[in-house]
């Protein structure tokens, strides 16, 4: 199989896209169990493959030493997929920004780590709300995280996080790192477009990835991945990727675009826009606080 990254900043629709992909060929013609997503999907920051395929105990290494070895790991994993008997596509979820290892190699091994990347982006104002819910923090904390060039997941040093450390950078830097790298071709998916016209946007992403799918299969996948169904599954059985109980929130929270308009305060909106105006403009996320600035500028 060839490997295709599903690359995104956290809370940008990566899981929804994975569920859509899993629902292309659902066993028994029933919606896929969200707690049992298929094996042709993996996670770039999973710890077990590192320990198993490099034969080194990652729990004895610093985060930087692990980063030095990750290019070799991702190259090895991609080669194993290519050498396998199945000639389909292997999707690998990744939240890491597209960065270089301490030795200056692409952390994810460039073209040797994957053939392509589907890059999923979402309005950072909606991400702030979703992230606050996911991490059980106040919205202010989530905004500080979005704006932090040193933001990372699983970066603790006094214990063993379940996943390898993932450097996210700030939201703008994360998106830019993926869209501006020249090692592998990318296809941009905006969460808002995926919400508005799921079948078309999902179908385009599949074509880019090289996954053949009929219109009927896509239509069924969209139906089986409806947000209300995902919420229902989470309500009835829980979701193994949801925040831990002590952190609070559910995973499938609102699933709509533009929720920030009635949930974020003007100061919060302004703080996000001030930091990310350029990337937001590039992706078509229109700032709400510009007019005020413009008026101030005109008055000056």
């Amino acid at each position: 199989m060839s490997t295709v990254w599903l690359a995104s900043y956290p809370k940008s629709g990566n899981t929804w896209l994975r569920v859509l992909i899993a629902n292309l060929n659902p066993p028994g013609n029933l919606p896929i169990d969200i707690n049992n997503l298929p094996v042709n999907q993996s996670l770039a920051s999973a710890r077990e493959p590192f320990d198993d395929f490099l034969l080194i105990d990652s729990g004895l290494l610093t985060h930087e030493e692990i980063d030095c070895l990750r290019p070799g790991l991702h190259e090895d994993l991609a080669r194993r997929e290519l050498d396998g008997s199945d000639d389909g596509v292997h999707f690998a979820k990744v939240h890491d920004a597209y960065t270089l290892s301490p030795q200056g190699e692409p952390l994810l091994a460039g073209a040797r780590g994957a053939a392509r990347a589907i890059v999923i982006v979402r309005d950072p104002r909606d991400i702030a709300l979703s992230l606050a819910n996911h991490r059980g923090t106040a919205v202010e904390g989530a905004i500080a995280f979005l704006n932090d060039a040193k933001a990372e997941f699983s970066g603790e040093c006094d214990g063993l996080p379940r996943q390898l450390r993932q450097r996210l950078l700030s939201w703008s830097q994360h998106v830019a790192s993926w869209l501006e790298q020249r090692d592998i071709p990318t296809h941009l998916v905006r969460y808002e477009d995926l919400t508005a016209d799921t079948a078309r946007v999902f179908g385009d992403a599949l074509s880019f990835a090289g996954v053949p799918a009929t219109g009927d299969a896509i239509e069924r996948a969209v139906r089986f991945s409806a947000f209300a169904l995902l919420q229902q599954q989470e309500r009835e059985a829980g979701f193994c990727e949801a925040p831990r109980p002590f952190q609070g929130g559910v995973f499938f929270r609102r699933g709509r675009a533009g929720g920030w308009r009635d949930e974020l305060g003007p100061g919060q909106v302004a703080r996000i826009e001030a930091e990310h105006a350029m990337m937001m403009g590039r992706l078509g996320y229109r700032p709400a606080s510009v007019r005020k600035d413009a008026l101030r500028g005109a008055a000056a």
Partner: protein
Amino acid sequence: MQRGCPSAPADPGRHSYSVAGLSLSSELELPGLIGTAPVSAPDVVICQRPVLPVIEDAAAVGPTWQIAGDRFWLRIPGIARFLLTGGREIAVEVEGGTSADEVAPFLVGTVFGILLHQRNHIALHASAVEVNGKAVLFCGASGAGKSTISAALTGRGYPLIADDLCGITLAGTPMAHPDGRLLRLWEQTIEGLGLGASRGAPVRRRLQKYYVEPGNWATSGLPIGAVYALREARPPRLPGIERPNAIDAALLLRRNAYRPMLVARTGQRAEYFKAAAVIAGSAAGVFYLTWPLDFAAIPDVLGWLEDHWAEIGLRGRAT
């Protein structure tokens, strides 16, 4: 061909240890292992020798390892290169300015795990404690709580058998063999379990992971009383102890091999399958222990375990 280790390990400067049922004579001191009396013919010899950057005629090559015949080459960049020969010798060349004591945790962990695979031993990624003369094993992925649960049990007086690597033999009764080393615990765990007073030296200077001496430890192999596979209690999995279905039980040991990739590569799948069948079919059993990976839950988890041991006939409540 590279020169291996000298066959006579009689130097007085050598250090003797016992790991997973094998006697070990090492030129390098291995902090974290519990020293033993020297034996005249050790099973494994460790020496410091030049190890080439590649090996000749490699039949299989990975990102950090190469295999040729009975030789297994491993490189941990910036730390050391290792050449294992025939499951009997380990040559070590330290890289760069790394000090030998920084190499020791890799040697007694991942390198010794490879050596056990090379010897066709069953090597589980497991911790273990002794309960009434039987070995109770906890296996699972890194971070699933193997060391934490075993450390908490040693706090209740159960002797430690293994911290991370547990060798199994099947001659007659299935036996688990001590990994002969101290506990290695992260700062978070030491604090979470209130073990600050027992904190020893750091495992590596750059890590907040420390050696912790258990109150008591087993020095020889013990018959296996139970094997628990640790899982995180996240929906839809509920906390508690349960018996897996027959298929999962049969695959459980292989999935928890020290390095599953080596089991496949060395053609040992059948051995692990057989071991799982023997253990699951004996008076002992194979179980899932699902817990919330939260230190606050540890007293409850220990309670479930002691109740379960009474239920399955181990009756191992420490006094």
